[in-house]
């Protein structure tokens, strides 16, 4: 045992608030924990490895001929769409895994430490961007192997990837919120997919919106997922999508600004 005597409580310099710098450091430490966890349990990466390949292959050949005449002509339109769909679905898994993680005793220790309250959540969400990165890479690689040659080249693909990952990270706060308030991991999945399916399918991810009824076109127009898909599509094609890009990033910022505090509050109240 250490021979050094303990500094008495009354003689310590103490602060009751956490600085921004410490918040960032704590979150990065927690993200490091998340990465170690991924390294230890690589089997949980199945959803970001198999799903992108399967979905890209499947939907390209199912919809391609009907919508664009042939699969190859459909790819430039479809690939950014399926990318958004895949990565957003992955962000649901973030919420589910967070729920499972929080049921472990170690989260109670985190709560007893003098660290930023948001860190255990922000860290977990940050580490999961690695999963989004994997899903993004595999979607593009699958597309490339199928003949997808984006006009904007590698730079465009990279820019689109970053935008999609940022948006997915922001969205994952919503699912993290469900994760914190739900009673079990299963119910997180249930609620999340209920939100997710209308959002991703009622968008321009799979088909152009102009054949849809007016009311649906209206919804597709305001659906944030459509803006994200349009932005990603434009970035890979090299067209000007400043408006959609700004709308997407603004939307992402609003989601984080609303849901991060909500999630942390719910997390702190959880007994």
């Amino acid at each position, binding site marked *: 045992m250490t021979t050094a005597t303990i500094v008495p409580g009354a003689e310590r310099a103490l602060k009751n608030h956490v600085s921004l710098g410490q918040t960032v450091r704590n979150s990065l430490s927690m993200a490091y924990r998340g990465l170690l966890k991924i390294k230890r349990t690589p089997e949980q990466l199945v959803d970001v490895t198999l799903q992108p390949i399967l979905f890209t292959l499947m939907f390209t050949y199912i919809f391609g001929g009907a919508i664009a005449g042939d699969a190859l002509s459909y790819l430039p339109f479809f690939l950014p769409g399926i990318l958004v769909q895949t990565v957003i679905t992955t962000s649901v898994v973030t919420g589910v895994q967070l729920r499972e993680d929080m049921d472990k*005793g170690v989260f109670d*220790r985190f709560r007893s430490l003098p660290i930023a309250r948001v860190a255990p959540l922000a860290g977990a969400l940050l580490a999961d961007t690695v999963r989004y990165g994997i899903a993004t890479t595999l979607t593009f690689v699958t597309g490339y192997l199928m003949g997808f040659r984006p006009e904007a080249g590698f730079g465009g693909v990279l820019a689109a990837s970053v935008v999609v990952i940022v948006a997915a990270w922001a969205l994952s706060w919503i699912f993290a919120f469900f994760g914190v308030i739900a009673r079990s991991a299963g119910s997180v999945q249930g609620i999340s997919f209920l939100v997710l399916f209308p959002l991703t399918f009622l968008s321009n991810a799979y088909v152009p919106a102009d054949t849809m009824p007016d009311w649906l076109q209206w919804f597709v127009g305001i659906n944030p997922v459509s803006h994200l898909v349009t932005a990603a599509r434009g970035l890979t094609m090299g067209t000007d999508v400043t408006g959609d890009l700004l709308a997407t990033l603004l939307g992402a910022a609003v989601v984080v600004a609303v849901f991060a505090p909500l999630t942390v509050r719910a997390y702190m109240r959880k007994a």
Partner: protein
Amino acid sequence: MNLTDSTWAIEADGLVKTFGANRAVDGVDLRVASGTVYGVLGPNGAGKTTTISMLATLLRPDAGTGRIFGHDVVKEPQIVRQLIGVTGQYASVDETLSATENLVLFSRLLGLGRAEAKRKAAELLEEFGLTEAAKRPLKQFSGGMRRRLDLAASLIAQPPLIFLDEPTTGLDPRTRAQMWDTIRRLVSSGSTVLLTTQYLDEADQLADRIAVIDRGRVAAEGTADELKASVGSSSLQLRLAEPRDLGDAQAAIERVLGVRATTSPEAGRLTAPMQDADRVTELLVTLREAGIHLTELSVQKPTLDEVFLTLTGHGVETDDSVDDDSTEPQLEGSRA
């Protein structure tokens, strides 16, 4: 900062926590002096873990106040967290990481640099005899190793107050003795320790003062000697052949031993605290002369049951589902 702030490590006044209709903690008052070991003794579901959770800022009290070295647990939680270490079945380590990774992670979270965190982790592993197991997955750790790692993790910041929630529940006797040694060394370095336990002998061995908690309230408080005096250094258990002799037997015990015997829920059974085991001979003679026949007689060290029976007038609740401790029923087998 006034004098009271530095004298008391813990001041709890009227802490209350309700879960639905169940008042898990129902007005607990505690005073723990700096540099001492304080034992909170009670059966499962008595409210021990809930009380600690409130003092460690993990649960918000429904009523009452808690102060750690003078800092309010609700108003200044972040300061309180800088002063405490928590170890228990609920605040444990990360099972997916190795021992070293756990300690490095917690060190980093507490503000240590990368190299410093590695050194601290190695140092603590050495101290707790875990160096050889440092890289092994935690799933392969024995119960005792897990507890030592838990404890090591809560000592990183050298907190002046350490909460140990049932540190030896489920451990075998040898590992338990090792844990006791560790806790004793901890105190000699100046820490204040609050430990909860279901075992009277554990509180007796380690604690300077003990609070007996029952149904969310403090039923008795004092030094181990004071508590033992109230239950006797050993306890006499009698089972009568004829339950109707109960009153006469109780009177005889009061006359000979000078103490009041409690009747157990089971008919025909008497339990009496006893300071001097030799006096039992006199009692037996008296009982024979009075024509009271016995079917069973035993003299035992007081158990938690007796402490409870004597202090609260009822036995230990056998219903484990009452509240906070219900998550570790699998550890109960080792309690006997």
